[in-house]
Protein backbone atom coordinates (compact mmCIF):
# COMPACT_ATOMS: atom_id res chain seq x y z
CA UNK A 1 0.00 0.00 0.00
CA UNK A 2 2.86 2.39 0.75
CA UNK A 3 4.13 1.12 -2.43
CA UNK A 4 0.86 2.09 -4.16
CA UNK A 5 0.79 5.56 -2.60
CA UNK A 6 4.29 6.11 -3.83
CA UNK A 7 3.40 5.05 -7.33
CA UNK A 8 0.37 7.31 -7.44
CA UNK A 9 2.48 10.36 -6.62
CA UNK A 10 4.94 9.33 -9.30
CA UNK A 11 2.25 9.42 -11.93
CA UNK A 12 1.48 13.05 -11.17
CA UNK A 13 4.86 14.81 -11.37
CA UNK A 14 7.30 13.00 -13.60
CA UNK A 15 9.08 16.14 -14.84
CA UNK A 16 9.57 18.19 -11.72
CA UNK A 17 13.01 19.75 -12.33
CA UNK A 18 15.76 20.13 -9.77
CA UNK A 19 18.25 21.77 -12.12
CA UNK A 20 18.08 23.85 -15.26
CA UNK A 21 19.15 22.24 -18.57
CA UNK A 22 19.81 24.12 -21.84
CA UNK A 23 20.96 23.44 -25.40
CA UNK A 24 24.51 23.67 -24.09
CA UNK A 25 24.05 21.17 -21.26
CA UNK A 26 25.80 18.16 -22.81
CA UNK A 27 26.72 16.51 -19.52
CA UNK A 28 24.17 13.72 -18.99
CA UNK A 29 24.85 13.74 -15.23
CA UNK A 30 23.20 17.15 -14.97
CA UNK A 31 20.07 15.97 -16.80
CA UNK A 32 20.23 12.92 -14.62
CA UNK A 33 19.34 15.03 -11.59
CA UNK A 34 15.96 15.74 -13.17
CA UNK A 35 15.38 12.36 -14.72
CA UNK A 36 17.24 9.83 -12.59
CA UNK A 37 15.45 6.75 -13.96
CA UNK A 38 16.41 7.44 -17.55
CA UNK A 39 19.90 8.43 -16.50
CA UNK A 40 20.38 5.25 -14.50
CA UNK A 41 19.47 3.09 -17.47
CA UNK A 42 21.50 5.32 -19.79
CA UNK A 43 24.61 4.70 -17.69
CA UNK A 44 24.17 0.97 -18.12
CA UNK A 45 25.33 1.28 -21.74
CA UNK A 46 28.78 0.98 -20.17
CA UNK A 47 28.03 -2.66 -19.28
CA UNK A 48 29.35 -5.33 -21.62
CA UNK A 49 26.68 -7.37 -23.40
CA UNK A 50 26.83 -10.40 -25.63
CA UNK A 51 24.42 -12.29 -27.85
CA UNK A 52 25.30 -14.68 -30.66
CA UNK A 53 25.78 -11.89 -33.19
CA UNK A 54 25.16 -8.79 -31.10
CA UNK A 55 27.02 -6.85 -28.49
CA UNK A 56 30.66 -7.74 -28.57
CA UNK A 57 33.00 -10.63 -27.99
CA UNK A 58 36.51 -10.11 -26.76
CA UNK A 59 37.69 -8.79 -23.41
CA UNK A 60 35.77 -6.20 -21.44
CA UNK A 61 38.65 -3.91 -22.32
CA UNK A 62 38.34 -4.12 -26.10
CA UNK A 63 35.74 -5.67 -28.40
CA UNK A 64 36.80 -8.49 -30.69
CA UNK A 65 38.40 -7.69 -34.06
CA UNK A 66 35.85 -8.34 -36.82
CA UNK A 67 38.69 -8.53 -39.35
CA UNK A 68 40.38 -11.35 -37.43
CA UNK A 69 37.12 -13.29 -37.08
CA UNK A 70 36.44 -13.03 -40.82
CA UNK A 71 39.78 -12.85 -42.66
CA UNK A 72 38.00 -12.15 -45.95
CA UNK A 73 36.83 -8.86 -44.44
CA UNK A 74 40.43 -7.85 -43.86
CA UNK A 75 41.43 -8.68 -47.43
CA UNK A 76 38.35 -6.88 -48.75
CA UNK A 77 39.49 -3.70 -46.97
CA UNK A 78 43.13 -3.84 -48.13
CA UNK A 79 44.24 -0.32 -48.85
CA UNK A 80 41.82 1.22 -46.33
CA UNK A 81 42.10 1.97 -42.61
CA UNK A 82 39.44 -0.63 -41.80
CA UNK A 83 42.01 -3.31 -42.61
CA UNK A 84 44.09 -2.06 -39.68
CA UNK A 85 41.48 -2.14 -36.92
CA UNK A 86 37.75 -2.92 -37.17
CA UNK A 87 35.99 -4.27 -34.12
CA UNK A 88 32.58 -5.19 -32.80
CA UNK A 89 30.53 -2.21 -31.74
CA UNK A 90 29.62 -1.86 -28.06
CA UNK A 91 27.54 0.34 -25.77
CA UNK A 92 26.98 4.08 -26.29
CA UNK A 93 29.10 4.91 -23.26
CA UNK A 94 32.21 3.94 -25.22
CA UNK A 95 31.57 5.73 -28.47
CA UNK A 96 34.00 8.55 -27.97
CA UNK A 97 36.89 6.65 -26.43
CA UNK A 98 36.60 3.82 -28.95
CA UNK A 99 36.84 6.35 -31.74
CA UNK A 100 39.82 8.06 -30.17
CA UNK A 101 41.58 4.76 -29.62
CA UNK A 102 40.97 2.91 -32.88
CA UNK A 103 44.18 2.29 -34.77
CA UNK A 104 42.37 3.66 -37.81
CA UNK A 105 43.49 6.97 -36.31
CA UNK A 106 47.03 6.11 -37.39
CA UNK A 107 45.79 7.30 -40.76
CA UNK A 108 44.72 10.96 -40.76
CA UNK A 109 40.98 11.10 -40.12
CA UNK A 110 38.59 13.95 -40.79
CA UNK A 111 36.74 16.08 -38.26
CA UNK A 112 33.51 14.73 -39.71
CA UNK A 113 33.99 11.66 -37.57
CA UNK A 114 32.94 13.55 -34.45
CA UNK A 115 29.37 14.03 -35.73
CA UNK A 116 28.27 10.66 -34.39
CA UNK A 117 30.64 9.99 -31.54
CA UNK A 118 30.21 12.94 -29.23
CA UNK A 119 27.70 15.49 -28.01
CA UNK A 120 29.02 18.01 -30.49
CA UNK A 121 26.16 20.40 -31.25
CA UNK A 122 27.45 23.39 -29.23
CA UNK A 123 30.75 23.11 -31.08
CA UNK A 124 28.99 23.16 -34.47
CA UNK A 125 27.07 26.26 -33.42
CA UNK A 126 30.28 27.88 -32.23
CA UNK A 127 32.04 27.18 -35.53
CA UNK A 128 29.04 28.42 -37.53
CA UNK A 129 28.29 31.46 -35.36
CA UNK A 130 25.01 29.92 -34.26
CA UNK A 131 24.32 28.02 -37.50
CA UNK A 132 25.03 24.36 -36.76
CA UNK A 133 24.89 23.26 -40.41
CA UNK A 134 27.38 25.94 -41.44
CA UNK A 135 29.55 24.83 -38.54
CA UNK A 136 29.43 21.16 -39.53
CA UNK A 137 30.32 22.09 -43.10
CA UNK A 138 33.65 23.40 -41.86
CA UNK A 139 34.59 20.29 -39.91
CA UNK A 140 35.41 17.89 -42.74
CA UNK A 141 38.39 20.07 -43.63
CA UNK A 142 39.62 20.02 -40.03
CA UNK A 143 41.89 17.19 -38.86
CA UNK A 144 40.11 14.84 -36.45
CA UNK A 145 42.61 15.57 -33.67
CA UNK A 146 42.01 19.32 -33.88
CA UNK A 147 38.22 19.10 -33.67
CA UNK A 148 38.44 16.41 -31.01
CA UNK A 149 40.57 18.72 -28.84
CA UNK A 150 38.13 21.57 -29.37
CA UNK A 151 35.26 19.35 -28.19
CA UNK A 152 37.24 18.37 -25.09
CA UNK A 153 38.28 21.94 -24.33
CA UNK A 154 34.71 23.24 -24.63
CA UNK A 155 33.63 20.50 -22.20
CA UNK A 156 31.41 18.53 -24.57
CA UNK A 157 33.45 15.34 -24.72
CA UNK A 158 30.50 13.11 -23.86
CA UNK A 159 29.05 10.21 -25.81
CA UNK A 160 25.62 10.79 -27.35
CA UNK A 161 23.81 12.69 -24.65
CA UNK A 162 20.30 13.69 -23.62
CA UNK A 163 20.42 16.99 -25.48
CA UNK A 164 21.16 15.16 -28.75
CA UNK A 165 17.70 13.60 -28.72
CA UNK A 166 15.66 15.81 -26.40
CA UNK A 167 14.47 19.38 -26.39
CA UNK A 168 15.66 20.75 -23.05
CA UNK A 169 12.44 22.77 -22.69
CA UNK A 170 9.78 20.24 -23.46
CA UNK A 171 11.78 16.99 -23.25
CA UNK A 172 10.19 16.10 -26.60
CA UNK A 173 12.40 13.88 -28.70
CA UNK A 174 13.88 15.70 -31.65
CA UNK A 175 16.80 15.35 -34.02
CA UNK A 176 19.80 17.64 -33.94
CA UNK A 177 22.35 16.27 -36.39
CA UNK A 178 22.77 18.50 -39.50
CA UNK A 179 23.82 15.64 -41.79
CA UNK A 180 20.59 13.78 -40.96
CA UNK A 181 18.39 16.81 -41.54
CA UNK A 182 20.00 17.56 -44.91
CA UNK A 183 19.78 13.90 -45.90
CA UNK A 184 16.09 13.72 -45.04
CA UNK A 185 15.37 16.89 -47.00
CA UNK A 186 16.97 15.38 -50.10
CA UNK A 187 15.04 12.16 -49.58
CA UNK A 188 11.77 14.10 -49.32
CA UNK A 189 12.53 16.03 -52.50
CA UNK A 190 13.13 12.78 -54.42
CA UNK A 191 10.17 10.71 -55.57
CA UNK A 192 11.47 7.49 -54.02
CA UNK A 193 8.73 5.49 -52.28
CA UNK A 194 9.09 5.64 -48.48
CA UNK A 195 6.42 3.39 -46.94
CA UNK A 196 8.34 3.51 -43.67
CA UNK A 197 8.03 7.30 -43.37
CA UNK A 198 4.46 8.43 -44.16
CA UNK A 199 5.10 12.03 -43.14
CA UNK A 200 7.26 12.42 -46.24
CA UNK A 201 4.34 11.49 -48.49
CA UNK A 202 2.22 14.04 -46.66
CA UNK A 203 4.88 16.72 -47.10
CA UNK A 204 5.20 15.85 -50.79
CA UNK A 205 1.49 16.39 -51.31
CA UNK A 206 1.70 19.75 -49.56
CA UNK A 207 2.86 23.13 -50.85
CA UNK A 208 6.55 22.25 -50.48
CA UNK A 209 7.10 25.93 -49.67
CA UNK A 210 9.44 24.98 -46.79
CA UNK A 211 11.86 22.05 -47.05
CA UNK A 212 10.87 18.89 -45.15
CA UNK A 213 11.75 19.36 -41.49
CA UNK A 214 11.99 16.12 -39.48
CA UNK A 215 11.27 17.99 -36.25
CA UNK A 216 8.27 19.84 -37.67
CA UNK A 217 6.76 17.43 -40.14
CA UNK A 218 7.42 13.97 -38.69
CA UNK A 219 5.20 12.14 -36.24
CA UNK A 220 6.46 11.28 -32.79
CA UNK A 221 6.53 7.64 -33.81
CA UNK A 222 8.79 8.44 -36.76
CA UNK A 223 11.06 10.45 -34.47
CA UNK A 224 11.45 7.34 -32.34
CA UNK A 225 13.50 6.04 -35.30
CA UNK A 226 14.93 9.33 -36.55
CA UNK A 227 16.93 9.90 -33.38
CA UNK A 228 18.82 6.72 -34.22
CA UNK A 229 19.00 7.55 -37.91
CA UNK A 230 21.23 10.46 -36.93
CA UNK A 231 24.09 7.98 -36.72
CA UNK A 232 23.14 4.42 -37.63
CA UNK A 233 23.41 5.08 -41.34
CA UNK A 234 25.67 4.76 -44.36
CA UNK A 235 27.81 7.87 -44.87
CA UNK A 236 30.70 9.60 -46.61
CA UNK A 237 32.99 10.98 -43.94
CA UNK A 238 36.33 12.19 -45.17
CA UNK A 239 38.07 15.46 -46.03
CA UNK A 240 37.00 15.92 -49.64
CA UNK A 241 33.48 17.21 -48.92
CA UNK A 242 31.17 17.54 -45.92
CA UNK A 243 29.70 14.54 -44.10
CA UNK A 244 26.98 13.17 -46.39
CA UNK A 245 24.01 10.83 -45.89
CA UNK A 246 23.42 9.63 -49.48
CA UNK A 247 19.64 9.59 -49.65
CA UNK A 248 18.79 11.83 -52.60
CA UNK A 249 17.57 8.86 -54.68
CA UNK A 250 15.95 6.91 -51.86
CA UNK A 251 16.92 4.61 -48.98
CA UNK A 252 17.35 1.34 -50.91
CA UNK A 253 20.83 -0.10 -51.47
CA UNK A 254 20.66 0.59 -55.22
CA UNK A 255 19.54 4.20 -54.67
CA UNK A 256 22.59 4.85 -52.52
CA UNK A 257 24.96 3.14 -54.96
CA UNK A 258 23.60 5.39 -57.68
CA UNK A 259 24.24 8.53 -55.62
CA UNK A 260 27.86 7.51 -55.05
CA UNK A 261 28.32 6.63 -58.72
CA UNK A 262 26.96 10.05 -59.71
CA UNK A 263 29.21 11.87 -57.24
CA UNK A 264 32.50 13.43 -58.38
CA UNK A 265 35.54 13.89 -56.17
CA UNK A 266 37.20 17.33 -56.21
CA UNK A 267 39.88 15.61 -58.29
CA UNK A 268 37.19 15.18 -60.94
CA UNK A 269 37.28 11.39 -60.65
CA UNK A 270 34.19 9.28 -60.11
CA UNK A 271 33.60 8.87 -56.37
CA UNK A 272 35.28 6.06 -54.45
CA UNK A 273 36.36 5.57 -50.80
CA UNK A 274 39.61 3.78 -51.60
CA UNK A 275 41.46 1.86 -54.25
CA UNK A 276 41.81 -1.81 -53.45
CA UNK A 277 45.45 -2.53 -52.72
CA UNK A 278 45.60 -5.79 -54.70
CA UNK A 279 43.44 -5.05 -57.71
CA UNK A 280 43.31 -1.26 -57.85
CA UNK A 281 39.50 -1.34 -58.10
CA UNK A 282 37.71 1.85 -56.99
CA UNK A 283 35.81 0.64 -53.91
CA UNK A 284 32.77 1.98 -52.07
CA UNK A 285 32.82 1.44 -48.28
CA UNK A 286 29.49 0.78 -46.59
CA UNK A 287 28.95 1.70 -42.94
CA UNK A 288 26.26 0.43 -40.56
CA UNK A 289 23.15 1.10 -42.70
CA UNK A 290 20.75 0.09 -39.91
CA UNK A 291 18.35 2.92 -40.66
CA UNK A 292 18.34 2.18 -44.38
CA UNK A 293 17.93 -1.59 -44.07
CA UNK A 294 15.24 -1.19 -41.41
CA UNK A 295 13.37 1.12 -43.78
CA UNK A 296 13.11 -1.70 -46.34
CA UNK A 297 11.61 -4.20 -43.90
CA UNK A 298 8.16 -5.18 -42.75
CA UNK A 299 8.62 -3.78 -39.26
CA UNK A 300 9.35 -0.32 -40.63
CA UNK A 301 6.36 -0.29 -42.91
CA UNK A 302 4.26 -1.51 -40.00
CA UNK A 303 5.34 1.55 -38.04
CA UNK A 304 7.65 -0.30 -35.65
CA UNK A 305 10.42 2.08 -34.60
CA UNK A 306 13.99 1.49 -33.44
CA UNK A 307 13.00 2.58 -29.98
CA UNK A 308 10.16 0.06 -29.79
CA UNK A 309 12.77 -2.69 -29.84
CA UNK A 310 15.93 -1.06 -28.54
CA UNK A 311 14.44 1.29 -25.95
CA UNK A 312 11.22 -0.46 -24.90
CA UNK A 313 9.07 1.04 -22.21
CA UNK A 314 9.59 -0.51 -18.83
CA UNK A 315 7.17 -0.21 -15.94
CA UNK A 316 8.69 1.66 -13.02
CA UNK A 317 5.96 1.31 -10.43
CA UNK A 318 2.87 2.87 -11.95
CA UNK A 319 4.71 4.94 -14.54
CA UNK A 320 6.37 3.77 -17.73
CA UNK A 321 9.82 4.89 -18.75
CA UNK A 322 11.81 4.18 -21.86
CA UNK A 323 14.72 1.91 -21.16
CA UNK A 324 17.74 4.05 -22.04
CA UNK A 325 20.03 1.08 -21.83
CA UNK A 326 20.17 0.90 -25.60
CA UNK A 327 21.25 -2.64 -26.48
CA UNK A 328 20.32 -5.85 -28.22
CA UNK A 329 16.58 -6.55 -27.85
CA UNK A 330 17.44 -10.21 -27.46
CA UNK A 331 18.57 -9.35 -23.94
CA UNK A 332 15.11 -7.98 -23.19
CA UNK A 333 12.67 -10.04 -25.25
CA UNK A 334 9.65 -9.66 -22.99
CA UNK A 335 9.67 -5.88 -23.27
CA UNK A 336 11.15 -5.61 -26.74
CA UNK A 337 9.14 -8.23 -28.57
CA UNK A 338 6.41 -9.74 -26.46
CA UNK A 339 4.45 -6.53 -26.17
CA UNK A 340 3.61 -7.18 -29.79
CA UNK A 341 4.29 -10.87 -30.30
CA UNK A 342 2.44 -12.96 -27.73
CA UNK A 343 4.67 -15.93 -28.24
CA UNK A 344 6.93 -17.45 -25.63
CA UNK A 345 10.51 -16.24 -25.41
CA UNK A 346 12.12 -19.49 -26.58
CA UNK A 347 10.11 -19.36 -29.79
CA UNK A 348 10.94 -15.71 -30.43
CA UNK A 349 14.66 -16.34 -29.98
CA UNK A 350 14.38 -19.34 -32.29
CA UNK A 351 12.78 -17.17 -34.98
CA UNK A 352 15.55 -14.62 -34.78
CA UNK A 353 18.21 -17.29 -34.81
CA UNK A 354 16.71 -18.91 -37.91
CA UNK A 355 16.78 -15.57 -39.72
CA UNK A 356 20.29 -14.68 -38.60
CA UNK A 357 21.73 -18.11 -39.38
CA UNK A 358 20.53 -17.93 -42.99
CA UNK A 359 21.91 -14.44 -43.32
CA UNK A 360 25.23 -15.47 -41.79
CA UNK A 361 25.60 -18.38 -44.24
CA UNK A 362 24.89 -16.12 -47.23
CA UNK A 363 27.43 -13.63 -45.91
CA UNK A 364 30.14 -16.30 -45.75
CA UNK A 365 29.12 -17.48 -49.22
CA UNK A 366 29.54 -13.96 -50.57
CA UNK A 367 32.90 -13.62 -48.86
CA UNK A 368 34.13 -16.83 -50.47
CA UNK A 369 32.98 -15.63 -53.90
CA UNK A 370 34.79 -12.33 -53.45
CA UNK A 371 38.02 -14.06 -52.42
CA UNK A 372 37.83 -16.19 -55.58
CA UNK A 373 37.40 -13.02 -57.62
CA UNK A 374 40.49 -11.47 -56.04
CA UNK A 375 42.49 -14.65 -56.68
CA UNK A 376 41.39 -14.70 -60.31
CA UNK A 377 42.38 -11.07 -60.85
CA UNK A 378 45.72 -11.83 -59.23
CA UNK A 379 46.23 -14.74 -61.60
CA UNK A 380 45.13 -12.69 -64.61
CA UNK A 381 47.69 -10.01 -63.74
CA UNK A 382 50.37 -12.68 -63.46
CA UNK A 383 49.30 -13.84 -66.90
CA UNK A 384 49.95 -10.29 -68.07
CA UNK A 385 46.41 -8.98 -68.45
CA UNK A 386 46.31 -5.21 -69.06
CA UNK A 387 44.43 -2.72 -66.85
CA UNK A 388 42.14 -2.11 -69.81
CA UNK A 389 41.35 -5.82 -70.05
CA UNK A 390 40.82 -6.05 -66.28
CA UNK A 391 38.33 -3.15 -66.15
CA UNK A 392 35.14 -5.28 -66.36
CA UNK A 393 36.35 -7.54 -63.54
CA UNK A 394 37.20 -4.55 -61.35
CA UNK A 395 33.85 -2.87 -61.99
CA UNK A 396 32.20 -6.08 -60.86
CA UNK A 397 34.42 -6.13 -57.78
CA UNK A 398 33.16 -2.64 -56.90
CA UNK A 399 29.54 -3.74 -57.24
CA UNK A 400 30.07 -7.01 -55.36
CA UNK A 401 31.99 -5.47 -52.46
CA UNK A 402 29.45 -2.67 -52.06
CA UNK A 403 26.68 -5.22 -51.59
CA UNK A 404 28.66 -7.61 -49.42
CA UNK A 405 29.92 -4.82 -47.16
CA UNK A 406 26.43 -3.32 -46.99
CA UNK A 407 25.14 -6.36 -45.10
CA UNK A 408 28.42 -7.17 -43.33
CA UNK A 409 28.51 -3.65 -41.86
CA UNK A 410 24.81 -3.67 -40.98
CA UNK A 411 24.56 -4.83 -37.40
CA UNK A 412 21.41 -6.95 -37.15
CA UNK A 413 22.77 -9.94 -39.11
CA UNK A 414 19.87 -9.54 -41.49
CA UNK A 415 17.09 -9.27 -38.94
CA UNK A 416 16.02 -5.72 -39.77
CA UNK A 417 14.85 -6.86 -43.23
CA UNK A 418 15.51 -10.56 -43.85
CA UNK A 419 14.41 -10.91 -47.46
CA UNK A 420 16.04 -7.63 -48.52
CA UNK A 421 19.34 -8.60 -46.88
CA UNK A 422 19.26 -12.00 -48.60
CA UNK A 423 18.49 -10.31 -51.92
CA UNK A 424 21.48 -8.00 -51.54
CA UNK A 425 23.79 -10.90 -50.64
CA UNK A 426 22.51 -12.85 -53.63
CA UNK A 427 23.55 -9.99 -55.89
CA UNK A 428 26.91 -9.75 -54.10
CA UNK A 429 27.74 -13.39 -54.83
CA UNK A 430 26.44 -13.17 -58.41
CA UNK A 431 28.56 -10.09 -59.25
CA UNK A 432 31.65 -11.49 -57.52
CA UNK A 433 31.37 -14.68 -59.60
CA UNK A 434 30.75 -12.69 -62.78
CA UNK A 435 33.95 -10.81 -62.05
CA UNK A 436 35.74 -14.09 -61.48
CA UNK A 437 34.54 -15.25 -64.91
CA UNK A 438 35.80 -12.06 -66.56
CA UNK A 439 39.19 -12.43 -64.88
CA UNK A 440 39.39 -16.15 -65.63
CA UNK A 441 38.93 -15.42 -69.32
CA UNK A 442 42.16 -13.41 -69.14
CA UNK A 443 44.19 -16.26 -67.72
CA UNK A 444 45.83 -17.55 -70.87
Amino acid at each position, binding site marked *: *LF*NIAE*RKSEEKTPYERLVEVTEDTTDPAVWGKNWPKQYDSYKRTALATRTRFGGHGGSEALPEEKIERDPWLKRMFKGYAFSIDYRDRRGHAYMLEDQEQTKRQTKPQSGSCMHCHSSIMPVYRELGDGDALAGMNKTHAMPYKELNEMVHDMGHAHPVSCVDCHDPESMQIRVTRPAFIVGMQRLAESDAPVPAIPSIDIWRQGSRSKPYDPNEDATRNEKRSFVCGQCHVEYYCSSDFPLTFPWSNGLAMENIEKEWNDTKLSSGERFYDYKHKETGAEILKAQHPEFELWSQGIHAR*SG*VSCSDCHMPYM*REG*ASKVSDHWVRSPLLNV*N*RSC*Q*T*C*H*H*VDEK*EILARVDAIQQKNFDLLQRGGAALMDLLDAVEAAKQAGASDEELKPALELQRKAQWRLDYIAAENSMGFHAPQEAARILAEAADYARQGQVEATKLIK
Partner: protein
Amino acid sequence: MFNKKAIIFAVLLGVLIGIGAFTFKYAEGFSYLSSDPEVCVNCHIMTPQYDSWQKSSHHTVAVCVDCHLPHDFFGKYIAKAENGWHHSKAFTLQNFHEPIMIKEKNKRILQDNCIECHKDMVHELFKRDMTEPDAVSCVHCHASVGHGALPTSIGGADRGVKREREDYD
Protein backbone atom coordinates in the same frame (compact mmCIF):
# COMPACT_ATOMS: atom_id res chain seq x y z
CA MET B 1 20.94 1.47 -3.04
CA PHE B 2 18.83 -0.49 -0.53
CA ASN B 3 20.50 -3.00 1.72
CA LYS B 4 19.39 -6.62 1.71
CA LYS B 5 17.54 -6.50 5.04
CA ALA B 6 15.44 -3.57 3.95
CA ILE B 7 14.42 -5.39 0.80
CA ILE B 8 13.49 -8.59 2.60
CA PHE B 9 11.52 -6.61 5.13
CA ALA B 10 9.73 -4.69 2.44
CA VAL B 11 8.83 -7.88 0.63
CA LEU B 12 7.53 -9.62 3.75
CA LEU B 13 5.48 -6.57 4.69
CA GLY B 14 4.25 -6.38 1.13
CA VAL B 15 3.21 -9.99 1.16
CA LEU B 16 1.30 -9.62 4.42
CA ILE B 17 -0.53 -6.42 3.68
CA GLY B 18 -0.72 -7.21 0.02
CA ILE B 19 -2.27 -10.63 0.19
CA GLY B 20 -4.57 -9.55 2.98
CA ALA B 21 -5.82 -6.41 1.36
CA PHE B 22 -5.90 -7.51 -2.21
CA THR B 23 -7.33 -10.97 -1.90
CA PHE B 24 -10.12 -9.52 0.19
CA LYS B 25 -10.89 -6.75 -2.22
CA TYR B 26 -10.34 -9.04 -5.12
CA ALA B 27 -12.49 -11.91 -3.87
CA GLU B 28 -15.19 -9.43 -2.96
CA GLY B 29 -14.87 -7.94 -6.38
CA PHE B 30 -15.39 -11.27 -7.97
CA SER B 31 -18.29 -12.39 -5.81
CA TYR B 32 -20.48 -9.28 -5.73
CA LEU B 33 -19.45 -7.00 -8.51
CA SER B 34 -18.24 -9.88 -10.53
CA SER B 35 -19.60 -8.43 -13.74
CA ASP B 36 -18.27 -4.94 -13.13
CA PRO B 37 -15.06 -4.25 -15.04
CA GLU B 38 -14.20 -1.57 -12.49
CA VAL B 39 -13.33 -4.40 -10.16
CA CYS B 40 -10.63 -5.57 -12.46
CA VAL B 41 -9.00 -2.18 -12.68
CA ASN B 42 -8.64 -2.10 -8.94
CA CYS B 43 -5.27 -3.23 -10.09
CA HIS B 44 -3.66 -0.62 -12.27
CA ILE B 45 -1.89 -3.54 -13.83
CA MET B 46 -5.18 -4.38 -15.54
CA THR B 47 -5.60 -0.86 -16.89
CA PRO B 48 -4.20 -1.54 -20.38
CA GLN B 49 -6.70 -4.34 -20.85
CA TYR B 50 -9.48 -2.20 -19.43
CA ASP B 51 -8.70 0.67 -21.76
CA SER B 52 -8.25 -1.54 -24.78
CA TRP B 53 -11.48 -3.39 -23.99
CA GLN B 54 -13.33 -0.10 -24.04
CA LYS B 55 -12.07 0.47 -27.56
CA SER B 56 -12.79 -3.08 -28.67
CA SER B 57 -15.68 -4.29 -30.76
CA HIS B 58 -17.14 -6.01 -27.69
CA HIS B 59 -17.23 -3.37 -25.02
CA THR B 60 -20.95 -2.87 -25.55
CA VAL B 61 -21.74 -6.56 -25.60
CA ALA B 62 -19.38 -8.30 -23.21
CA VAL B 63 -17.58 -7.43 -19.98
CA CYS B 64 -14.41 -9.00 -18.60
CA VAL B 65 -16.00 -11.91 -16.86
CA ASP B 66 -18.15 -12.80 -19.86
CA CYS B 67 -14.97 -13.74 -21.62
CA HIS B 68 -12.61 -14.63 -18.83
CA LEU B 69 -14.64 -16.57 -16.34
CA PRO B 70 -16.54 -19.80 -16.94
CA HIS B 71 -20.24 -19.18 -17.29
CA ASP B 72 -21.26 -22.16 -15.14
CA PHE B 73 -21.44 -21.59 -11.39
CA PHE B 74 -18.83 -24.02 -10.07
CA GLY B 75 -16.31 -23.39 -12.77
CA LYS B 76 -16.68 -19.70 -12.09
CA TYR B 77 -16.11 -20.17 -8.39
CA ILE B 78 -13.00 -22.29 -8.86
CA ALA B 79 -11.50 -20.04 -11.52
CA LYS B 80 -12.17 -17.04 -9.29
CA ALA B 81 -10.39 -18.60 -6.36
CA GLU B 82 -7.53 -19.74 -8.52
CA ASN B 83 -7.08 -16.55 -10.48
CA GLY B 84 -7.85 -14.45 -7.44
CA TRP B 85 -5.07 -16.02 -5.43
CA HIS B 86 -2.77 -16.06 -8.42
CA HIS B 87 -3.33 -12.45 -9.30
CA SER B 88 -3.01 -11.01 -5.84
CA LYS B 89 0.07 -13.06 -5.10
CA ALA B 90 1.62 -12.07 -8.37
CA PHE B 91 0.63 -8.48 -7.91
CA THR B 92 1.96 -8.24 -4.41
CA LEU B 93 5.24 -9.87 -5.21
CA GLN B 94 5.41 -8.10 -8.55
CA ASN B 95 7.01 -11.25 -9.90
CA PHE B 96 4.72 -11.97 -12.84
CA HIS B 97 5.75 -12.03 -16.47
CA GLU B 98 5.31 -8.77 -18.29
CA PRO B 99 3.70 -8.19 -20.62
CA ILE B 100 0.96 -10.27 -19.06
CA MET B 101 0.15 -13.09 -21.43
CA ILE B 102 -2.91 -15.24 -21.03
CA LYS B 103 -2.16 -18.80 -19.93
CA GLU B 104 -3.45 -21.95 -21.54
CA LYS B 105 -6.07 -22.68 -18.92
CA ASN B 106 -7.57 -19.23 -19.27
CA LYS B 107 -7.33 -19.45 -23.04
CA ARG B 108 -9.63 -22.44 -22.93
CA ILE B 109 -12.10 -20.67 -20.66
CA LEU B 110 -12.00 -17.85 -23.17
CA GLN B 111 -12.60 -20.20 -26.09
CA ASP B 112 -15.61 -21.75 -24.38
CA ASN B 113 -17.04 -18.30 -23.83
CA CYS B 114 -16.61 -17.29 -27.45
CA ILE B 115 -18.49 -20.37 -28.47
CA GLU B 116 -21.04 -19.89 -25.72
CA CYS B 117 -22.14 -16.67 -27.38
CA HIS B 118 -21.45 -17.56 -30.96
CA LYS B 119 -22.42 -21.17 -31.32
CA ASP B 120 -24.98 -20.21 -33.87
CA MET B 121 -22.39 -18.50 -35.99
CA VAL B 122 -19.84 -21.28 -35.79
CA HIS B 123 -21.94 -24.35 -35.26
CA GLU B 124 -20.74 -26.01 -38.41
CA LEU B 125 -17.13 -25.62 -37.35
CA PHE B 126 -17.61 -26.77 -33.83
CA LYS B 127 -20.45 -29.18 -34.05
CA ARG B 128 -17.96 -31.92 -33.37
CA ASP B 129 -15.31 -29.92 -31.60
CA MET B 130 -16.88 -28.42 -28.51
CA THR B 131 -15.18 -31.12 -26.47
CA GLU B 132 -12.20 -31.69 -28.71
CA PRO B 133 -8.95 -30.38 -27.24
CA ASP B 134 -7.63 -29.26 -30.59
CA ALA B 135 -10.45 -27.10 -31.83
CA VAL B 136 -8.99 -24.24 -33.83
CA SER B 137 -8.66 -21.30 -31.47
CA CYS B 138 -11.02 -18.44 -32.22
CA VAL B 139 -8.32 -16.06 -31.15
CA HIS B 140 -6.02 -17.50 -33.80
CA CYS B 141 -7.93 -15.25 -36.17
CA HIS B 142 -9.94 -12.96 -33.91
CA ALA B 143 -7.26 -11.79 -31.49
CA SER B 144 -8.62 -8.26 -31.58
CA VAL B 145 -12.17 -8.80 -30.39
CA GLY B 146 -11.54 -8.23 -26.70
CA HIS B 147 -8.83 -5.63 -26.66
CA GLY B 148 -8.52 -4.26 -30.13
CA ALA B 149 -5.69 -5.27 -32.38
CA LEU B 150 -2.30 -6.06 -30.96
CA PRO B 151 0.32 -3.87 -32.60
CA THR B 152 0.92 -6.84 -34.83
CA SER B 153 -2.81 -7.40 -35.09
CA ILE B 154 -1.96 -11.02 -34.44
CA GLY B 155 -3.07 -13.32 -31.66
CA GLY B 156 -0.95 -15.99 -30.08
CA ALA B 157 0.44 -18.56 -32.46
CA ASP B 158 -1.50 -21.83 -32.48
CA ARG B 159 1.25 -24.24 -31.51
CA GLY B 160 -1.05 -27.17 -30.82
CA VAL B 161 -3.06 -27.16 -27.63
CA LYS B 162 -1.90 -30.61 -26.51
CA ARG B 163 1.67 -29.43 -26.16
CA GLU B 164 0.69 -26.21 -24.44
CA ARG B 165 -1.43 -28.00 -21.90
CA GLU B 166 1.60 -30.06 -20.93
CA ASP B 167 3.56 -26.88 -20.40
CA TYR B 168 0.85 -25.47 -18.21
CA ASP B 169 0.47 -28.37 -15.81
